[in-house]
């Protein structure tokens, strides 16, 4: 970070302010990123709450609509898919953690677990399997969000240190 140091003549280097602004932008982006995981978790909890109530707010599906959707998959197949998905998601996150690869930020896990709730609902076995989806989701998303939070915090710490050094040098 030699460019962050003060100019020998006491004046700041021309890119000094630019660099400071870029660091501040990166800090804001990292702060937003660490919160993004929280939003996906909140969305998952909201969907879980609706699923716990067995989606009672939804109107009953008409026979024509059910015929259009076709026969629901057997609940054993959905459960098998859930176990495989949760297992591979946990292993994937742990692998990313060990290799320090950038964590996933999107709503993909929320979408997948919502799909599992929907499949169980359409098969008519949601009350029996609700807690399985809920705990699998909590585990996968908790781990992913923890990694996102830890990764963002670490990067934030480095950026803030850099900014402090830059400010200290600029004075």
């Amino acid at each position, binding site marked *: 970070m030699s460019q962050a140091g003060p100019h020998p003549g006491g004046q700041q280097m021309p890119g000094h302010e630019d660099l400071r602004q870029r660091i501040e932008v990166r800090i804001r982006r990292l702060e937003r990123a660490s919160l993004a995981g929280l939003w996906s978790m909140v969305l998952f909890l909201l969907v879980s709450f609706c699923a716990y109530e067995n989606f009672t707010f939804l109107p009953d599906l008409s026979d024509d609509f059910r015929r259009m959707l076709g026969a629901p998959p057997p*609940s*054993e197949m959905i*459960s098998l898919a*859930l*176990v495989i998905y*949760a*297992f591979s998601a*946990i292993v994937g*996150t*742990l692998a990313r*953690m060990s290799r320090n690869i950038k964590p996933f930020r999107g709503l993909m896990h929320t979408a997948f677990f919502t799909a599992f709730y929907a499949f169980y609902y359409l098969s008519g*076995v949601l009350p*029996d*399997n609700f*807690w*399985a*989806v809920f*705990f*699998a989701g*909590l*585990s*996968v998303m*908790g*781990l992913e969000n*923890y*990694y996102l939070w*830890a990764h963002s915090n670490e990067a934030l710490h480095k950026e803030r240190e850099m900014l402090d050094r830059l400010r200290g040098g600029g004075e």
Partner: protein
Amino acid sequence: MLSSINSRAIVPVACAVTGFVIACCVLLYTFVKGDLITGEIHHAADLADTVIKSTRYAMLHDDRETLSQIINNIGDQNQVEHVRIFNKKGLIMFSRDGSEVNNFIDKTAAGCNECHAESKPKRKLGAMDQARQFTNKDDHDVLAITAPIYNEPECSNAACHFHDAGQSLLGTLDIGVSQAPLKKTLTQLKGRMIMFSGMVLVLTVGAVCALLYRQVFLPIKQLVDFTEKAPGDSLDYDFPQVSGEVARLANAFKQMTVRVKELEDRQDKSREDPSTEPLP
């Protein structure tokens, strides 16, 4: 709280293991519950078949007294909640509960719907479709089977009464067995699974914590204590009892300190005696 290396290492492990084990246990419980209920339904369907076969001779001879006695004896069994035979029109002909006899059955009730949902009733049902689960007026959970009694050549040819060959269904046997033993088994299974999962979780998370503490945190703590010694303290003593990478790190730190000390000594000497070779 989450900034220490202990929590950073243990939280992900605890989070992943706990959630996954609970989810798998819930799914396993659902599978076992489904299998037990299916087994119970097949058992009840076999029981209904046995009752129909046992009463066949009495029906062929139109021996209503014997038939009524068989139904009463079956109904007296511990797990049997109700047993009744009604004719094609739904009129109850025989029942363990005498007050039901000569009353019509409610065709819209659960169990009747399977055949009577459409305008033309279904002729054949599988074992799973014949079953229904409900709570009766005594607040007992019941698994009931409705088994049709079909017309056979011996029935239509018999001289005793009036079944013609074109009539496919003569009546229906409805037998309900208590689900209390099944519920008790499921409750025991749930309790054992919760206990087993708890033990697996405690052991897994505990073992990971213990190993991390012994293999990582304790050597790091010893290393930190070693490196935080006051300047001038001899590093030959209290060398941490560690091995592997942490020992290499401790050795590297020790060598670095020795080199720094040598350099400082040489610097001091060069200040005192300018003829000494200066530091590079």
